[in-house]
């Protein structure tokens, strides 16, 4: 392509990305304070609110909350998986070392994204098991597939939000800041309880939260959405992702 490319010794981009993913997964799996809340809380909350408390109204809650707790799990895996670890790596000079050395410029992002997607998928499968065995939820295979796909791809915009937080927060502040965003957004987007059970004001302002739009896409699969255009929800999520990622990457390039 140009003169520089000829002088770069060929490095397998695959090898770099796979090593990065391996390290990222090992790091997280050895961090119980990340793994347990991320992988178990959505299923636990779903069992409580969707199955034990909501089971009495004939399975509607089990089906609704199956969709929203999948979104909740994705949200947690992405926001924490990016926000906290990026803040730590930045503060500890790891990103600077990567930039000093010939590390692939994006592999640390793709590895974290794949990790968030894997965690999102695991949560989705846990919920599916609970819902079908204990909640009496029965979906067509295409519905299951659609739900899981929406969850896994939904990791992308929330990963971008997490990246933005990780780029601005110190390592100490990051977990608190992520929680300040994560918990209210989850609640006010109707992920824990259906919006219809919240005060009407909350239901009316819910569309300001990106998680609301993700939840609407998931709820549409089980026929419980609010009836908005899926393209609007998709567009909002895409916009949030692009804006957050570009602000974050610009700051990383400028300040490190």
């Amino acid at each position, binding site marked *: 392509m140009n003169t*520089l*490319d000829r*002088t*770069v*010794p*060929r*490095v*397998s981009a695959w*090898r*770099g990305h*796979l*090593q*990065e993913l*391996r*390290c990222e997964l*090992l*790091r997280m799996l*050895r*961090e119980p304070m990340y793994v347990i809340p991320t992988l178990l809380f959505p299923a636990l909350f779903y069992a409580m609110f969707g199955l034990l408390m909501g089971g009495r109204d004939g399975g509607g809650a089990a089906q609704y909350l199956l969709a929203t707790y999948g979104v909740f799990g994705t949200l947690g895996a992405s926001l924490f998986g990016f926000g906290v670890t990026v803040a730590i*790596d930045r503060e*500890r*000079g*790891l990103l*600077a*070392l990567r*930039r*000093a*050395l*010939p*590390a*692939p410029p994006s592999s640390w992002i793709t590895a974290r994204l794949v990790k968030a997607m894997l965690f999102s998928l695991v949560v989705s499968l846990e919920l599916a098991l609970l819902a079908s065995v204990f909640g009496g939820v029965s979906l067509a295979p295409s519905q299951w597939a659609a739900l899981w796909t929406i969850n896994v791809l939904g990791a992308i915009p929330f990963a971008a939000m997490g990246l933005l937080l990780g780029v601005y927060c110190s390592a100490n502040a990051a977990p608190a800041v992520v929680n300040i965003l994560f918990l209210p957004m989850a609640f006010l987007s109707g992920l824990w309880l259906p919006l219809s059970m919240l005060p009407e004001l909350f239901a009316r302002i819910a569309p300001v939260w990106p998680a609301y739009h993700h939840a609407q896409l998931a709820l549409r699969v089980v026929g419980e959405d609010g009836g908005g255009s899926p393209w609007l929800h998709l567009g909002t999520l895409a916009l949030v992702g692009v804006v957050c990622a570009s602000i974050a990457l610009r700051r990383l390039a400028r300040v*490190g």
Partner: protein
Amino acid sequence: MSDVNANDDTVLARLDGVRRRRGAVQALDGVDLELPAGRVTALLGVNGAGKTTAIEVLLGLQPPDGGQAMLFGLPPTTPAAKARVGAMLQQTQLPERLAVGELLALVRSWYAAPRSVADCVALAGLDGLLGRRYGRLSGGQQRRVQFALALCGRPRLLFLDEPTTGLDIDARQQVWRAIRALVADGAGVLLTTHYLEEAEALADRVVVLDAGRVRATGSVDDVRARVAQRHVACDSALPEREIAGWPGVLHVARDGRRLSIVAADADGLVRRLLQADAALSNLEVRRAGLAEAFTRMTRDDDTREAA
């Protein structure tokens, strides 16, 4: 690699009149620096002299405000330049939960033709550590892991920011041996250090950086000769003020009966001391080590600034 052969005169990286401001401080104020292949260049300076900023500009971590930084004839952020660089930065904390072998595998994957794991282990002295978690290693062991990561890609140019901080004598000797081996293979090394005997033991060239400016460049002997001082100590009742007035005397201090004198010419001073005080005893004359030469340079500068 035909474009960069192991010729000792090959300049691998350079700063030309680089200026860089960090906050209120002019961290680099027109710095020129050349890093030749097959040589160890030691960058000396007190904290805040601009050593780390110089390394970061050379590695493309900070852009120069003025002047130019070149790495293998390319801008330092170019991938082709990075591919030949290894670095051990000062403030790096690697992920605690990864094992040494996992970290090594990760960084090796960034290079086209990395050193074998066995070579890395041997060079950096990591025997028996590959399976251990990084966070469970001692400070010195962690430093050695960082050293291994710096050299694992067979870099043509190695940046080592205070590589032996926190290492015991044996481990430091090991790192020194490794650096000598890499340099013998034609690699260039830029080293910053607080241990001046490290620069004396390793460096072919010394660059003294002070308040963002290069104060001296040359071999260890050159730099020492630049401040061709002798330290003379003796027990004597001679008044300091009288000695301070003698030609060539730079500094006089007294501790009880003990006089410490820094002078440009020891022979003349000693002759005159013995003439002036027949009772003088315990005479001692030393040549300044690099440490003293270097602190004196910095102190002279402080005096000049204060004046």
